[in-house]
């Protein structure tokens, strides 16, 4: 147990910092007089003093963290913070069970965006804002934020960064110092979010809606303050703005960072993921638009394209907004969208799934194996964007994708065994592990995850955390080898 204390020490610090995040909805609630002030008072108090106790009680165990500690710390952060985050919801929404509140907050922090709540429009605005803020914070990873702040505390940031950042190539560094990298990424993230909010305002959203949807768009989360999601606005202009910013958020933020620092767009061209991501997503929009039109779902092609584009980009980037109930479309279209969500977005973006870079590496690896059969003496390497990918990364990717598949199959089976129909079980699993949000049938965009029983809800929570922590980080903590001395 003594090994855990240094980690708890840092966790306490992070928890105290996290309590500060609740000040924003507190101030908002006080300003709007929506009657939720007391909920935040209590939540802040509980969170802050829990953090303080953990931090103070373990102060003698403070030491530099090892790689192993990084994994455990990340898992602990992602599982405890949603518990604290759910306090305002539990107080403010009568009849909400802890399981559902926890699900809601995990869904927010993992940028999934699936909800168990209905009647969103009647909730106090500050509660909706709190949900959106969770998505935004979760978007770039609480840890990267922590890395930007925690160096003040003298804790090795590299382990956290490695354990948390999505994508297989974690060693590529943008600046010599990891904290500079983290700060740079956050600045870019915050800057683009601001642009997104202003654009929403420019197409006539209210300020409050603009900020909330800006947060959930950039986090690729998909929470909305309306039950009807984007159907509430029913505005092509708003949808167009959302599509643009979802696509931006689906590109590696390190690439955005390089563009911003170098004042040149050439990093986009050199990023092998960005082009493929945009190509696949936009081609799918056109294809599905044509498909819906030909199947007579919409009377004219432009309308079909509008709905196909918005929902496809939204699901492919793992956001989860909807402006219509795509569950009613012929089954191929939503299945294709879910398929895209499992690989389309880039590594280092706020999206989910196995990430485009892994899909590209897999494809190239297959091509390489075929080539090796043709040329037994050939020295054939897997290259991406002119860079040679070392075999150890390819093995890691293969193992990753294998576990990803196994997880989807086993969770689908578990959910089916617990009484869900196959489509619901499969789509709930895929939508959760890809951090997408809405699934199909009973958990489709027109309904919520409230129909799940507690057991099924916990399975989905686990799937969301697995997806957000990219499987390995969470699974390794669950292996006996991790705890062996």
């Amino acid at each position, binding site marked *: 147990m003594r090994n855990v204390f240094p980690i708890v020490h840092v966790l306490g610090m992070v928890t105290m910092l996290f309590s500060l995040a609740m000040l924003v909805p507190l101030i908002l609630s006080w300003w709007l007089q929506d009657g939720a002030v007391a909920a935040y008072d209590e939540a802040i108090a509980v969170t802050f003093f829990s953090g303080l106790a953990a931090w103070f009680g373990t102060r003698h165990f403070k030491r530099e963290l090892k790689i192993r500690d990084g994994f455990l710390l990340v898992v602990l952060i992602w599982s405890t913070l949603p518990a604290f985050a759910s306090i305002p919801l539990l107080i403010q929404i009568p009849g909400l069970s802890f399981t559902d509140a926890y699900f809601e907050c995990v869904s927010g922090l993992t940028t999934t965006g699936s909800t168990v709540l209905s009647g969103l429009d009647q909730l106090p605005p500050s509660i909706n804002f709190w949900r959106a803020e969770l998505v935004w914070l979760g978007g770039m990873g609480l840890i990267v934020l922590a890395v930007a702040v925690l160096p003040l505390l003298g804790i090795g940031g590299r382990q956290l960064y490695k354990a948390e950042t999505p994508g297989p190539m974690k060693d590529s560094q943008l600046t010599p110092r990891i904290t500079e990298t983290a700060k740079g990424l956050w600045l870019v993230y915050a800057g683009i979010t601001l642009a997104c909010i202003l654009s929403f305002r420019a197409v006539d959203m209210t300020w409050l809606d603009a900020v909330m949807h800006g947060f959930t768009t950039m986090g690729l989360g998909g929470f909305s303050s309306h039950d009807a999601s984007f159907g509430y606005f029913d505005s092509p202009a708003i949808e167009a703005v959302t599509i643009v910013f979802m696509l931006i958020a689906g590109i590696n933020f390190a690439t955005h960072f390089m563009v911003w620092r170098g004042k040149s767009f050439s990093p986009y061209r050199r990023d092998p993921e960005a082009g493929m991501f945009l190509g696949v997503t936009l081609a799918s929009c056109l294809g599905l638009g044509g498909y819906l039109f030909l199947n007579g779902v919409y009377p004219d092609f432009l309308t079909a394209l509008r709905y196909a584009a918005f929902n496809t980009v939204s699901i492919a980037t793992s956001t989860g907004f909807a402006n219509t109930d795509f569950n009613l479309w012929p089954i191929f279209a939503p299945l294709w969208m879910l398929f895209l969500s499992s690989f389309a977005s880039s590594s280092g973006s706020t999206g989910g799934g196995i990430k485009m870079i892994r899909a590209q590496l897999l494809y190239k690896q297959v091509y390489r194996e075929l080539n090796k059969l043709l*040329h037994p003496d050939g*020295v*054939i390497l897997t*290259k991406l964007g002119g860079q*040679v990918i070392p075999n150890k990364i390819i093995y890691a990717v293969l193992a990753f994708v294998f576990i990803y598949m196994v997880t989807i199959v086993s969770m689908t089976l578990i959910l089916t065994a617990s009484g869900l129909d196959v489509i619901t079980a499969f789509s709930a699993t895929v939508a959760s592990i890809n951090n997408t949000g809405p699934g199909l049938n009973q958990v489709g965009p027109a309904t919520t995850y409230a129909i799940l029983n507690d057991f099924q809800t916990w399975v989905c929570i686990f799937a969301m955390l697995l997806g957000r922590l990219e499987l390995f980080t969470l699974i390794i903590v669950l292996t006996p080898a991790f705890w062996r001395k």
Partner: protein
Amino acid sequence: MKIVILGAGQVGASVAENLVRESNDITVVDIDPAKLQYLQDRFDLRTVLGFASHPDVLRRAGIEDADMLLAVTQSDETNLVACKLAHTLFNTPTKIARIRCTDYLNHEGLFSPENFAVDYIISPEEVLTDYIRKLIEYPEALQVLDFAHGKVRLAAVRAFHGGPLVGHELQYLRKHMPHIDTRVAAIFRQDRPIIPEGKTVIEAGDEVFFVAAAENIRVVMREMRHLDKAAKRVMIAGGGNIGRRLAGSLERHYQVKLIDHNKKNSERLAAELSNTLILFGDATDPDLLQAENIEDMDVFCALTNDDENNIMSALLAKRMGARKVIALINRSAYVDLVQGGQIDIAISPAQATIGSLLAHVRRGDMAVVHSLRRGAAEALEAIAHGDANTSKVVGKRVEQIDLPRGATIGAVVRGDEVLIAHHDTVIESEDHVIIFVVNKQMISRIEKLFQVGIGFFG
């Protein structure tokens, strides 16, 4: 001329050999006594043992009254530092450095007098790569050389039965192709030069050198022999400096396979080259060649640094069906041995690259010098300066110029215009004159022609 050469490697040694023959005072500096001893024993030159970029070593080599410094060691950095020192400490008039790393060449002003103070840069690898690339571009040619930045080319081709011109007099060429201007500069029959005249008959087996604008080269070649389809598939043996560069410059337009026998190096090549198939193995292994469809290869280039290996693998490739085989051969005795036999083209790297240096050593203003036929013949691009009073060429018709017998003016480049030389073409000041010389002994007379004399009345 007093010349200090830094580095007694392949480049340094062959440069020294050529320059000694042209009666220059040569001092060679190197850190390897064995290499220096080798040169000392064979040629009339002085050697200095020491590190090439140390001022004291340079002084001992007599840099203080040298006319020229040739820094051709293996190390770019040593060469650059030596040039800088020669400029700062000894005020050497002409400094030439060999640079291998292309990145140095991409930065403007790096070589100006206030920086590294290099007057001319030579890159033998680059020259050789270029040389081989042109042979792949024109698979029928024995040699293709650029003049005036590629506007004019000199090509050598072996005449075969079936070429429309073979068996005819040269003047028939003009009648047969009235729109194409070309000039046959020399013909070698059984290795002996024939001065081409209107009545000369081209026979099968002749090696014909002709000058033409770059775009007309293929058309003229068709007159001498049947043309095959253009090359598409190239196999290279040896992934050293030359093989790597060649593959890099070819891979976008050709299907390139590169064989290397070093595991580490082949992985490095695979990382660096994006469109080339790298094969790990021995180029003299028939099974490997067979597995990689040697019979479908249009060109096979043996470019390892082992002469015997290159000869054997080129012979093997030819036997197994490669259309044209090229072998890089360092030892000049071997070059004579294999050229024209089963191996289509034997390239001596020293001969192929010496020209880029000779251009700077020659008196008179020479833009380009190409050494031909293993150093026996030469093609020059000389720039005419002065006016009718001071120059022996300016203002004269070609037929009036006092050229030694065996030297031919092939073409004149005036600004951007290419004029194929005829007897009545008048040379103007600043013209680039392309001259073919069948015998090297005439070089000094050509040099004198293009030097601007003072008080010359003629």
